[in-house]
């Protein structure tokens, strides 16, 4: 009787071990195929480093005073589920570094290049109001970094990608969704902060909505 139970338990354990192995393999594959590089909190060294060091304890999520740090939702890139991601919905990052301070695993660290520069703002030419018609100057007005967002002679905003630190205030304040009629072919906002590791960051200048979505696929939680 007890021998039989032990055998059953071992079958269970073997099944669980196989599931873990399959999960690991599937996860590694999903990682390879994932186009997206998500916008991580300041101090994230790289996607691979964060994934290897984050234990999903959610302390950075809890401590963020502006609710920017959110656990990543479940997606096809499932190994990233529960790891921290920045969402500029209720505020922007003022580099208070509380998330780095509370990280117990070194997934976020002061040594990382992103500790002072989370990402870069990319203008979305077909969603930005100023791009087509001019007149809107919100992103240039609110930007806390001098000369990071400037307006050209036609009133179009331009981001100096060397100066921009990705704080997200322009994305937060961009009034495009309320200024233009709803158009399903464009993304909601005229400016988005993207990770400097992403393909979107590698494309020069302003992007179209299609380019942006293809290079930096926004998942649930962004829009």
């Amino acid at each position, binding site marked *: 009787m007890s021998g039989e139970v032990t055998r059953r338990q071992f079958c269970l354990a073997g099944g669980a071990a196989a599931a873990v192995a399959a999960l690991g393999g599937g996860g590694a594959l999903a990682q390879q195929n994932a186009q997206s590089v998500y916008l991580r909190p300041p101090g994230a060294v790289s996607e691979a480093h964060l994934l290897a060091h984050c234990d999903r304890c959610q302390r950075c999520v809890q401590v963020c005073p502006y609710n920017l740090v959110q656990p990543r939702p479940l997606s096809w890139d499932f190994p990233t589920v529960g790891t921290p991601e920045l969402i500029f919905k209720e505020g922007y990052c003022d580099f208070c570094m509380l998330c780095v301070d509370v990280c117990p*695993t070194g997934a976020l660290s002061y040594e990382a290049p992103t500790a002072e520069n989370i990402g870069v703002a990319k203008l979305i030419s077909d969603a930005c109001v100023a791009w087509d018609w001019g007149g809107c100057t919100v992103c240039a007005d609110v930007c806390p970094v001098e000369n990071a967002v400037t307006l050209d002679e036609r009133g179009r905003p331009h981001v100096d990608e060397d100066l921009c630190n990705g704080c997200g205030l322009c994305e937060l304040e961009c009034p495009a969704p309320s200024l233009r009629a709803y158009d399903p072919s464009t993304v909601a906002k005229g400016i988005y902060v993207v990770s400097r590791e992403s393909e979107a960051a590698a494309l020069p200048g302003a992007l179209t909505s299609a380019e942006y979505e293809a290079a930096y696929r926004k998942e*649930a939680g962004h829009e």
Partner: protein
Amino acid sequence: MNKMRYLRIGVALAVLAVVFGCTLAHVPVGTLCALCPVGFAELTVAGGAVPWELLPGVLVLLAVVFLLGRVFCSWVCPTSLLRNLFGGRTPRGLTGQTGTCAGCATDPANPNTARTRNNLASQGVVLVVLLVVSFIVHFPVFCLICPIGLVFGTLFAASRLLVTWQPGWELLVFPAMLVLEVFVLRRWCSAICPLGFFFGLMAKARSRLTFLPDPRVRKDVCLHNEGCNVCATVCPEDISAATAEPHDLEDCTLCLDCREHCPTRAISLTVPKE
């Protein structure tokens, strides 16, 4: 009445409420994942560096298990919370009165002979495999399916749904995985849970020491010799306290159901008299 069960449900819910309240209040206490010895080991192999800052919390958890037995399992673990609320292995839901006792029919004189013991070997196999896989793929792989993490994941997803109206697939997938792990795979805790491997080691070390508290039976009032097996019937681990040897009590999670339901109140949580 299932007083102890309601108390355990209360304690486990309180732990979730504290984590949730701290999230709203921006207090970085972290989830239970910050105390997890499995997570600690996984990150060590996945990241190639020991996350020393996690170590104090992990050691505190293991010390508690060493001193008090596997209290985490029945009082804190969200898996037990779900079983206490919705049924599952032996405690049959919120109002269920009785459990089953595997050994009571086959060997009423000592039901402990036929019960399913916590299987350190199979838990160890799972632990080794998950560490090897984590080492190869460079991320903590068991965290993706751990029922404790899934409960917290569901909570965070639910709060995202309610607070900012952002429904996610995890609201369907996580509960489905929990049903599979907690209610379909009824031996999850005793055969798979790698956390149980660490706790089992602690419990083994603990059973060598005789001065620590365990449920003990006063033989003069115990009705076991008259055929009573209530303690084994109500025990989630099928342990008969009346006939338990120290190695049987290694699996005890100190839920105290036996103490509550013993018809002669013969069981108490004490250190040995000698």
